[in-house]
């Protein structure tokens, strides 16, 4: 049964990448949107552009993984093709994991392009490759699970887009992308600590600027908890929707 599940995860992700993700509008949206935000902020507040890079990478992962992920399941449920996956000899969590893997793969691919650009533009003497890799993986997993949860929580595609933006945009301004958390009022700092983007930005900053493993471990652990909890909620919600 595990073999069936693993095979299902792999091929569902592959099918989603082929059918939905790797299309020109998605790729350009995934890369241009975070760049546009960062550029707008940099023009308004010219300073150390390097300081914005962790936020840029985190935003790219967030939008790369969750934009399509938040739509795919509700779209397939709407047109009936999700039923094909439900009829397949795999368990429901495996189906969902396949969806997550598709979103993660696309988000990470787009982020690698952005990473290649920023690595070629700036010097990063203290960068830790392993921590950067783990920070990207754990961030993609949390954001993809968030996208999946949004997708199963709604009934219509437009509702998914609305809910995803309702979550992402406040998170973007509170998650330490543009301004350090310490400069926010205490109340907003507490809210920021409840958002996965905050830990993603911190983990990426730590990896790029040579922070400690101990600090990185906390960020990665919190991102892992977000991934598991959101995945669990998504699986429960999807099971209820089907019944």
């Amino acid at each position, binding site marked *: 049964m595990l073999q069936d599940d693993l095979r299902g995860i792999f091929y569902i992700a592959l099918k989603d990448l082929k059918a939905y993700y790797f299309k020109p509008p998605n790729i350009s949206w995934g890369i241009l949107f975070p760049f546009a935000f960062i550029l707008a902020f940099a023009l308004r507040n010219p300073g150390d552009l390097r300081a914005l890079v962790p936020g840029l990478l985190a935003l790219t992962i967030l939008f790369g993984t969750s934009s399509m992920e938040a739509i795919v399941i509700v779209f397939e449920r709407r*047109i009936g*093709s999700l039923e094909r996956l439900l009829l397949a*000899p795999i368990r429901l969590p495996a189906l969902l994991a396949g969806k997550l893997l598709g979103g993660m793969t696309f988000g990470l691919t787009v982020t690698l392009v952005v990473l290649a650009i920023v690595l070629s533009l700036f010097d990063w003497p203290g960068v830790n490759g392993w921590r950067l890799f783990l920070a990207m993986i754990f961030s993609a997993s949390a954001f993809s699970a968030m996208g999946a949860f949004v997708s199963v929580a709604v009934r219509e595609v437009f509702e998914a887009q609305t809910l995803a933006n309702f979550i992402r945009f406040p998170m973007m301004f509170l998650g330490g992308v543009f301004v350090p958390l310490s400069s926010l009022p205490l109340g907003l700092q507490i809210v920021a600590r409840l958002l996965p983007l905050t830990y993603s930005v911190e983990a990426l900053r730590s990896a790029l600027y040579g922070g400690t493993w101990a600090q990185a471990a906390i960020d990665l652990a919190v991102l892992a908890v977000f991934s598991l909890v959101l995945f669990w909620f998504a699986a429960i919600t999807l099971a209820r929707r089907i019944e």
Partner: protein
Amino acid sequence: MTEAIRVEALTKVFTTAKDHPPLRAVDGIDFTVQVGEVFGFLGPNGAGKTTTIRMLTGLSRPTAGRAQVLGLDLDADLPRVKKRIGVVPEASNLYDELTAFDNLIFAMQLYGVPRHERKPRAKALLERFRLSEKHDVPFAKLSRGMKRALTIATALAHSPPLVFLDEPTTGLDVMSARSLRQMIATLRDEGVTVFLTTHYLEEAERLCDRVAIIVKGRIVALDTVDGLKSRMPQKNILVVTLAGPDGQIEKKRFISDNGIETAIQQALKECQGQSILHIETLRPSLEDVFVHLTGLSAETMLVEKGGKGIASQANPGGGNAAG
């Protein structure tokens, strides 16, 4: 194993709005489907056909009762059951963005068909369903009949011994529907067990070895088509076509419970002096049985479905001419 499906007291109750009582969509049904037979599941809209299929394929959990599919307990062995069945839902629901070929390959990947078998088998299925020329055409761009054919082909991609077909010909033109019916007959010849729901009674009559009629969640009759017909109280029907004095064609029906001879004598007596053009005997059709058992006309059922009757496509007279 002689039984492909065994269903005992299968029940599905849906909770509804606060002020309404729960809806018993399927109400304690029992039946078996033998290996290799085409089993028809007939009933009007909302009778519980699709809910039954959804329970038997694992898409919906029964409220009560139990079912065995291909010798496996549905509740305990669902993934193994799913691996051995093919399902064609009422709506063709493949992936619009994938080509005909890629849709078949994806189905085989999901069901664990060995890698070296996938391409040849996909090509063979496209050929069998006359879709070879559409190999690289996205599903979205196929005609409705082709979409239906590809959906059936996909359900057969992993060579399941049992196939569920939910209204396979609904909404198709005459040629596509005929072609699909031929495909279903071929499946039976190959030993595949087919569980078929349809609104088209004549389709069921042509294809099914046995038929269950379900009304309001309960099976009201289950037998072979001939067995169901034999339950009809009016067995001898004679239709006489007459030429009227002004050239008009008139048809008269004579029904007798005492043998066809009585009906003929009665017809000849009443039509004496008139010009008889044609005499035919009618056996009761499955439609007559359906009307007798459910009180619903076939037309009502088709209007509910929004479909066009096979009967009106092929045999406007309704019953089967046997004389």
